[in-house]
């Protein structure tokens, strides 16, 4: 028993400390890499003339795919926004994923749709398609509406959209996402700018909960007022501007969010499309595309751009937040398990040797280790084995570092382009960063543990429904 206790003490007093130092070092590296990448992007923006693309006959065509499940309240504005994007060659594919409300009827009425003999080739297996609609009005000739049976996942609907798409690139988004009008022109840039084949690109997603929106267009960007969205905003800034930009710099990106991602259709089809059984289908797809490219010895890039091009509503109630986070963690664990052959496999280069181990050790394992540490901490406190001054210094060490990283992410956000008009909104974000480790992080930790529990116990998890309250009260499937 004594030996066990010595070992546990050794693990928690030494190994975990070095583990924390390693995490911190990795964060610092991400901070540096991301600022290099953001600066490079900003400098190129000076030089790039977008009108050359807008007027060109040679741009690659893009299919914009947006699944819709019970989106009666937002579908008209959503489609209107998508049809107004600035790009010379694109189509909009709305996939009505077996809605039980009047989503389809609203589309038919508003856009003068009629059932067409559009040929649907099922390259990726999906739930059956009931019909495909096109507009009788030439103004909406870009619009295609697919009506299909519900597939109980966004992945199935997205796959149906991919099957129907006719362009070499496709952009996946959600019906409730508000896209910037220049989204396509900005996101296609890496595909035409890079000399190596780009297989996917993502951009920064922001939170629209407190933003002013009119007819599907964003009028004013504001920091969320509510507790959960406010902290999620911080989390998004950190994840997108620090994490993903840095991974993009070394071509190690493993996740392009479902809210906005532009993909090379050929590679997606070769890799088999979205996995409709996965709870983290966006991450799983990138993993599979990377594996496919590496297995076929083809050079490729997965890139990210630091511009906020998509605004989405996030859960503001604890119940929905809990379900979302549990699902994300389960999805992460699933993806890591599916692609376990990549783990420290030199064949997969940066992906196998750096990105994948990073996600295993610092994203998936971190909450488990943290929880273990807290339990051990409580045990030491009860048994009177804590030297309180050491404990306080260690707490200050972790706390001050995490606040510093978040504040730096806010600075990078300012460098990438000031989103908030007023200083007091940024101040609010800074204040939130200071309290985040005590009030928000425990929640994230708890739901991560729950997600792992669901994964290991193979417990069933439903995608569920969520009440979005941002612009109109309605029921929709969560992303």
């Amino acid at each position: 028993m004594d030996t066990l206790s010595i070992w546990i003490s050794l693990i928690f007093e030494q190994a975990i400390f070095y583990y924390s130092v390693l995490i911190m070092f990795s964060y610092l590296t991400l901070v540096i890499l991301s600022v290099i990448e953001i600066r490079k992007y900003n400098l190129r923006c000076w030089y790039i003339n977008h009108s050359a693309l807008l007027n060109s006959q040679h741009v690659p065509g893009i299919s914009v795919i947006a699944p819709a499940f019970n989106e009666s309240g937002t579908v008209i504005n959503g489609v209107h926004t998508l049809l107004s994007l600035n790009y010379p060659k694109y189509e909009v594919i709305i996939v009505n994923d077996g809605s039980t409300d009047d989503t389809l009827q609203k589309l038919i009425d508003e856009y003068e749709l009629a059932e067409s003999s559009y040929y649907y080739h099922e390259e990726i297996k999906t739930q059956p398609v009931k019909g495909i609609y096109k507009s009788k009005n030439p103004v909406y000739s870009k619009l295609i509406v697919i009506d299909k049976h519900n597939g109980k996942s966004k992945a199935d609907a997205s796959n149906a959209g991919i099957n129907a798409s006719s362009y070499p690139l496709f952009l996946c988004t959600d019906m409730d996402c508000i896209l910037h009008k220049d989204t396509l022109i900005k996101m296609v840039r890496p595909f035409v700018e890079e000399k190596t084949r780009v297989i996917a690109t993502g951009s920064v997603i922001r939170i629209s909960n407190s933003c002013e929106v009119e007819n599907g267009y964003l009028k004013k960007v504001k920091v969320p007022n509510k507790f959960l969205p406010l902290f999620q905003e911080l989390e998004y800034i950190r994840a997108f501007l620090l994490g993903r930009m840095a991974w993009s710099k070394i071509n190690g990106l493993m996740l392009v969010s479902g809210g906005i991602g532009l993909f090379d259709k050929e590679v997606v089809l070769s890799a088999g499309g979205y996995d409709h059984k996965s709870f983290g289908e966006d991450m799983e797809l990138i993993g599979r595309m990377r594996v496919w490219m590496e297995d076929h010895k083809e050079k490729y890039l997965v890139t990210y751009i630091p511009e906020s091009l998509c605004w989405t509503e996030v859960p503001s109630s604890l119940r929905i937040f809990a379900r979302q986070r549990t699902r994300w963690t389960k999805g992460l664990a699933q993806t890591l398990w599916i692609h376990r052959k990549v783990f420290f496999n030199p064949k997969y280069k940066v992906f196998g040797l750096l990105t994948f181990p990073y996600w295993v050790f610092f994203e998936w394992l971190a909450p488990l280790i943290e929880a273990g540490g807290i339990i051990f901490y409580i045990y030491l406190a009860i048994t009177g084995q804590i030297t309180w001054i050491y404990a306080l210094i260690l707490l200050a060490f972790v706390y001050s570092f995490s606040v510093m990283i978040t504040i730096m992410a806010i600075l990078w956000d300012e460098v990438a382009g000031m989103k908030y008009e007023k200083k007091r909104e940024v101040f609010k974000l800074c204040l939130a960063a200071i309290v985040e480790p005590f009030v928000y992080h425990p929640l994230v930790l708890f739901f991560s543990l729950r997600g792992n529990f669901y994964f290991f116990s193979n417990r069933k998890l439903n995608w569920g429904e969520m009440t979005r309250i941002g612009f109109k009260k309605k029921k929709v499937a969560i992303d």
Partner: protein
Amino acid sequence: MNQLNAVVNHNYPEIIRFAAFVAIISAILTFCTIAVIFVNRVIKKRRQKIQKMADEAILETLGERIFIYDSVSDISEKELSKTLSILDVLKNKNKIFRKSMIRLLVYFQTNLTGSVGRIVNATYSRLKLRQFSLKKLQSPLWFLKTQGLTEVQRMKDVMSLLEVYKLVNDKNQDVRVASYIALVRLRARDCFEVMSKEREELSEWQQMMLVEGIFNTIGLTIPSFKTFLRSENRSLVLLGIKLIVDYRQLDAIQELLAVINAQDDFIRLRIIEALGALNAEEAESSLRNRYQLEPVKNKAAILISLGLIASGNSVDFIRQKFMEAEDFLIIKSAAAAITSHPPVVAYEVKNELQEEHAVQKGLINHFTEALN
């Protein structure tokens, strides 16, 4: 306090001392970062304010004293001197005013033509603003060079050609491409010759920028781009194909056919597409003969091109591929090609289809329906 002294005086374990050190540094950096965020905001706001003031003052002067005239000769020398001295004062006020003036004049020069454009150009020259653009061309920073090149070409500053030529061998490819565009815009005689010497691969983006630059330059003598097809730089071959199609240079068809044996699948694909876009009837038999040698994507492109040419000579060939192929892309391309012909062809093919040809039937319906 005693505890802190203990930390400082090295009485604590190394790990704890390290943790304390990191915590202090992190706290300091946090406060510094917050300060930078807000100071940066204040500076930016101030800069925006000055910028707005500069824009208003310059626009007012230009609007009231320059744009009211139809040509430079209408302005009396006295009036012109007075206007220029006002603008000169604004220009010398500070860096923001000067930058603003260059930006606005470049903007007007780009968007206005005729006599007003000439007035803007004359104002730019007499205010000696070109020296600032030329200074940028000499900067060691690539983005300043490209900015300078953009200003020079938009202001149609032919006097700066010599400086532009110096940049065609710059080590940064973006600068080189910007200098090619500047040469095109300034209508330098050898602009295409200089461009054809590019050794590094041009990205799709750079090719598009060059195409846009060439296409939007009025009065440019357009050469036959078939010379690009023999380049060792594959991206120049691709650029040449784009330009041949955009300018519908039918005299390049024979040259396209001569290089269709290229090793590169992608170049062959683009050539096949170009032949279709140029409605090259003389290329039909060559395309049909190549069909078996090509990968699936190129086979599909051959069918589409034959459909675009639609001479009627390849109907049997397309019909055969349509009925026999197993690959969906080939069947789809053949269906598109059939429906590009007069409607009677699609009607006849449809009548031939049996029950087992459900895919073919569906695709013919797809392509013949007006909604699709």
